[in-house]
């Protein structure tokens, strides 16, 4: 068997797996009856539908010829990993280090995701955005965000 459409094959597989996982999960909750549906009733119906649709997409991807094979193409590993890592670091750092330190860290990190990295530009952006986000979010919108690291405040 040859895969005729890469994108459809993998999305079909994703749908089937998600459907099965949710269906197995739904069996942990009470089904109830049609007259008195329990918490597991609706999720079970949905996950079965999901798995069915997924297998249909999967079946199609193996049988119907698509021009060019619909390849997924190169994965942009660098932006993907850098952005995800930056968000995670932001979440971990903000409550401990405060806005003043976290924002420059985030800007420095995310800037690594692009093709170009120029120190001058990145540092300028970091300064502007740190001041800007303080002005907009803390001063303007009066949101409660830690400003300084724990050892200062």
């Amino acid at each position, binding site marked *: 068997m040859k895969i005729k459409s890469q994108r459809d094959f993998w999305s079909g597989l994703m749908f089937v797996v998600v459907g099965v996982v949710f269906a197995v999960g739904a069996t942990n909750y009470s089904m109830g009856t049609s*007259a008195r549906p329990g918490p597991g009733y609706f999720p079970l119906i949905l996950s079965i539908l999901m798995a069915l649709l997924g297998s249909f997409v999967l079946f199609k991807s193996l049988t119907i010829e698509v021009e060019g094979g619909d390849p997924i193409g190169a994965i942009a590993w660098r932006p993907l990993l850098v952005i995800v890592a930056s968000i995670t670091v932001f979440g971990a750092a903000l409550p401990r280090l405060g806005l003043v330190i976290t924002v420059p860290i985030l800007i420095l990190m995310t800037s690594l995701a692009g*093709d170009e990295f120029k120190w001058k530009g990145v540092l300028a*952006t970091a300064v502007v955005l740190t001041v800007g986000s303080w002005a907009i979010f803390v001063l303007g919108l009066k949101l409660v965000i830690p400003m300084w690291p724990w050892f200062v405040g």
Partner: protein
Amino acid sequence: MDLLGNLALGFGVAFTAQNLMYAFFGSVLGTLIGVLPGLGPVATIAMLLPSIYSLDATPALIMLAGIYYGAQYGGSTTAILINVPGESSSVVTAIDGYQMARQGRAGAALAAAGLGSFFAGCVGTVIIAAFAPPLTELAFKFGPQEYFSLMVLGLIGAVVLASGSLIKAIAMIILGLLLAQINTDVISGTARYSFDIPELTDGIGFVVIAMGVFGFGEIIANLGMPAEHREVFTKSVKGLWPTKQDFKEAWPAVLRGTALGSLLGVLPGGGALLASFAAYTVEKKVAGASGRFGKGDIRGVAGPESANNAGAQTSFIPMLTLGIPPNAVMALMVGAMTIKGIQPGPQVMTSNPQLFWGLIASMWVGNAMLVILNLPLIGIWIKLLTVPYRFLFPAITLFCCIGVYTLNNNTFDVYMTAAFAVVGYVFYKLSCEPAPLLLGFILGPMMEENLRRALLLSRGDWGTFFVRPLSAGLLAAAALMIVIVLLPSIKSKREEAFQEE
């Protein structure tokens, strides 16, 4: 006249200094993100949701609405000047608008787009004011069966009229519905799919999903593409007023575009994108051999631009009257209303008349502001186009992060968003449209509640959905839509219509 009385109330609300300010702010921000490619209204509205905690409901919604229709104006500017549609609804505008700009008629194209949009916006506002009350009345006759069927119709409609594979889109809806099942069951109090993580028992915030998938997913996808070369027609914008000949050609196109857009906007899944595609096709047909389409025909700008603005306006109708969002932006508006403690649905008009009519009136005000903003200030917007993406994406990332964090002052949400950024990129790579997922996610809890209530009332008889005439009609309409789309002749037309995307 009820209509006049209501509109008077609305304008009274819209013309207070505070609300004018927020309408202005929203429109400017909308134009800004419309001009900047790589940042859409969905991500922006999601980003701003936390900020509305400190606002009243009316100014908050006025601002968010301004962002949505402001983006339609801004999107056309980039489409005409640099052949990069800032918004997906301006894709067709780029075809003829860019050609006009290359011939030195950028001013005429921008004016046609701006004035056409303004006219369409005015008509759209009147249509909302006229049609919302009767629809609301109808909605009060709805039982849980009707609501369930209506949501089925809404979700199916949303994917039938969208681009891409139909089955995958339906699967994405169901994925959204399933993700919405991660919560505590309202009826029995059972925590579902929470894996004993306390944050998950409250469910995943829809801002987390919207931001992860639409905001970060898009950034990663944009960065993965090679930097493109852009040709900006900055200097050639002069002679803003179209010639007499331009006017003569453009106004029928504006009328047709407005009519088409208003109609398509109301349909579930409609809104701006579909309206502009349909209008372009119609204009091409109407012009026939006399048209210079693809070579800078003003009708190819005026028609779709009027249509997308009219569609953007009238897509508020199902959201405001039935509480059912027809597209992803409206889904976020529903979320915004919920944050402000307003249950979306037919009762909004009677329980919050100030909000309802004020929002409608503010759309007209906002449209008027946009014409003023866009035509004379076009130079400023063009300047913005020269800001490189390497300055933009760290800023977008930062605002998204702060937005998610402040939503609940919770870092768990930030980590979840990081996870959904990966999911969003996977969707992008597998060409799975994320918008249906968001709709399903928003409607999930409502759908389950209505389904279970209907089954409870009918003692477990699924036939109840087919026996009640209104409910049966809605389901039949949904089935009909699927059948029509699957017909071979329509199917090829549909693929043709979306191939330019």
